[in-house]
């Protein structure tokens, strides 16, 4: 690979975005669509060839050739690309491509900035995965946040999207300022901004300032990762954002927040906080468990299709945080595999929700009861998606879950297996339940609640008799991608080796600062998925039973009454999702105080 192609995945989309903004009216809607999709396709190709180039060892790219001279300080800004960064960038570009192709048939009436914003969003997320510099990470974070806020509030002809985008923007911006504060403190201590150099300068000394910096940065990125209690914005933003945008939000943006926490920990704080591994593990895993449980309960209680999927993302985000929070290379590899397969599956499900909206102009489960009879292909995609969310073979989520629970086995955190089971059963059963009701028309209509009545102006002008191929093919392709990842064992072994590199702070630092080639540690763990297969088949069976029990509970009388209370949800929990940005920021402050307090208690 020629290293000079490394900045292209960021540069090309930004230039095309500028061109489309300038010349969009002149070249017409179709040409904009084609140009934007072609750019995303080119980006898929470039990020794939970059990934191919870093398959065996990471590459460091210094902008303007400002590499650190021997013994000197780092003045330049660099991209450090390893398998983790490379794979995440590929995921970003694939999801953007699917979203852009899906969008050909929507927004027919409006003159909008959809394509340029999507391209900027893609460029920012690629840069976010690649960068090796703290402040650069913040700049890409803000670039992706601002384009995300604008994309979320794109349908400005009604108030609900504005509320969703406003809540999203306020909560995430408070998180961003916490990150700036944390970066400032780290710079004050070390005088550096490069991950490798900050990590090396911090050494193994941890005091209150280092802890405070870690708290601010980690919480700031956890806001993006929608970890409870920082998650409130996510459901509001997903409920109103256009479906192809939800694909990027749920499929990769949220996951990048967790990735940033992992990257910051392993390159900067691993040495300083290394002696406190147990304390950190317990903090991270308890946050992960709370997130998974609350997300799953809320997911099953929702009847607005996109909001339901949004809470499912929160639940799975908790499971992914468990992969990072166990602080072992094996669990970290599980995290990446889970992110890749969950990203495409959830992306496919959001596109399916977009198909339903396109077809019927409605998105509430109660209004849609029985509407989808005869849409067998879309129904099949929903069922396959639910299958993937349950972590059942042949989907890649199985391998991710297996690696994470393998990492938890034999530690104090082996109970995480039950959290996985709980979250997977509920989120998968929720998707099956809507499939049974909407596409098969089984049972009674769903109970109606406030969230199912959220008015959503459809993305297309009138309801359509059939589903266009440009909508169906991206959705089907994404779900199928969730399966193919398991067909290539070399992806899994590369991820496992990559996780060993990722977690070696000294190897990372010498690769960046002294250009020392990292020798690959071949991971010795053999694959032992048979126990996980049994567990995931049980999860799948339970979720089918739960979904059927919920749909047909009238026929079975009182024995299945618990499904009603599960479906209506806990009133207090639902009221906490109040839609008021002030409440969300109050929860954010409370969560920061609790996490900060436990950090100081456990680590001092």
């Amino acid at each position, binding site marked *: 690979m020629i290293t000079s192609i490394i900045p292209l995945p960021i540069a090309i989309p930004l230039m095309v975005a500028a061109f489309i903004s300038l010349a969009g009216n002149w070249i017409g809607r179709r040409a904009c669509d084609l140009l934007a999709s072609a750019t995303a396709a080119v980006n898929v190709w470039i990020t794939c060839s970059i990934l191919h180039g870093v398959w065996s060892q990471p590459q460091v790219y210094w902008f303007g050739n400002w590499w650190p001279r021997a013994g000197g300080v780092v003045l330049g800004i660099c991209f450090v690309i390893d398998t983790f960064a490379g794979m995440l960038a590929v995921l970003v570009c694939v999801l953007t491509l699917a979203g852009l192709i899906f969008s050909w048939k929507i927004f027919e009436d409006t003159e909008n900035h959809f394509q340029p914003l999507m391209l900027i969003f893609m460029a920012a997320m690629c840069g976010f995965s690649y960068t090796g510099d703290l402040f650069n990470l913040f700049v890409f974070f803000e670039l992706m946040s601002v384009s995300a806020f604008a994309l979320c509030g794109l349908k400005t002809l009604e108030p609900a999207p504005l509320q969703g985008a406003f809540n999203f923007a306020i909560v995430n911006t408070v998180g961003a*300022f916490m990150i700036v504060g944390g970066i400032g403190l780290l710079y004050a201590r070390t005088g550096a901004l490069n991950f490798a150099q900050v990590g090396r300068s911090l050494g193994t000394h941890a005091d209150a300032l280092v802890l405070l910096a870690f708290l601010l940065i980690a919480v700031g990125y956890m806001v993006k990762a929608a970890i409870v209690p920082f998650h409130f914005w996510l459901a509001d933003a997903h409920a109103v954002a256009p479906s192809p945008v939800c694909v990027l939000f749920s499929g990769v943006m949220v996951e990048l927040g967790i990735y940033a926490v992992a990257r910051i920990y392993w390159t900067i704080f691993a040495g300083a906080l290394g002696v406190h591994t147990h304390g950190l593990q317990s903090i991270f895993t308890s946050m992960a468990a709370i997130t998974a449980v609350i997300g799953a309960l809320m997911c099953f209680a929702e009847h607005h299709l996109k909001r339901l999927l949004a809470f499912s993302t929160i639940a799975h985000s908790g499971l992914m945080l468990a992969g990072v929070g166990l602080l072992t290379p094996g669990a970290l590899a599980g995290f990446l595999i889970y992110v890749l397969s969950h990203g495409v599956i959830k992306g496919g499900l959001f596109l399916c929700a977009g198909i339903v909206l396109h077809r019927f102009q409605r998105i509430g489960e109660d209004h849609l009861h029985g509407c989808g009879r005869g849409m067998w292909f879309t129904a099949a995609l929903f069922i396959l998606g639910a299958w993937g969310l349950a972590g059942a073979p042949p989907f890649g989520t199985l391998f991710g879950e297996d690696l994470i629970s393998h990492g938890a086995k034999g530690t104090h955190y082996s109970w995480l297996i039950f959290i996985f089971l709980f979250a997977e059963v509920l989120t998968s059963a929720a998707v099956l339940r809507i499939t049974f009701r909407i596409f098969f028309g089984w049972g009674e209509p769903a109970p109606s609640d406030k969230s199912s009545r959220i008015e959503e102006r459809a993305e297309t002008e009138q309801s359509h008799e059939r589903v266009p191929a440009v909508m169906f093919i991206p959705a089907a392709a994404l779900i199928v991608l969730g399966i193919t990842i398991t067909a290539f064992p070399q992806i899994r072994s590369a991820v496992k080796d990559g996780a060993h590199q990722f977690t070696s702070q000294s190897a990372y630092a010498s690769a960046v600062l002294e250009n020392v080639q990292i020798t690959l540690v071949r991971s010795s763990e053999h694959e032992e998925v048979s126990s996980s297969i049994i567990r995931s088949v049980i999860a799948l069976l339970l979720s089918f039973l739960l979904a059927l029990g919920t749909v047909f509970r009238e026929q079975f009388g009182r024995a299945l009454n618990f499904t009603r209370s599960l479906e209506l949800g806990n009133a207090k929990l639902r009221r906490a999702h109040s839609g008021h940005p002030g409440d969300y920021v109050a929860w954010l402050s409370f969560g920061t105080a609790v996490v900060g307090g436990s950090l100081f208690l456990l680590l001092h």
Partner: protein
Amino acid sequence: MILAYLPYAIAAWIFLWGLYGIVTSKNLVHQVVCLAILQTSTYVLLLAIGYKVGGTAPVFADIPVGTVVVDPLVQALMLTDIVVEATVMALLLSMVVKANELAGTVDPEELRFLMG
């Protein structure tokens, strides 16, 4: 000695008041301005980090070698911070204008279409 920590305390103080304002605000414009106030805490923090007693401006064209200067890097960070957040504020305020047009209110209590 205490004075050296004063700017950091002020930064924390502004941050907390900004949070308080956002949480209790009854008006979306007011809420956005509170976010802007919260942001100024990062300016104070960055300035405090880069400040050197007796330092001059870091313009190296006409000062003798060895002159004490304040840290130019934090100023660059702050500039980026300002640019980035100006965008966010503009976007947020434009959303407030739109919300007022469509819903006829700027009270976050009344602008609750999504909840539960």
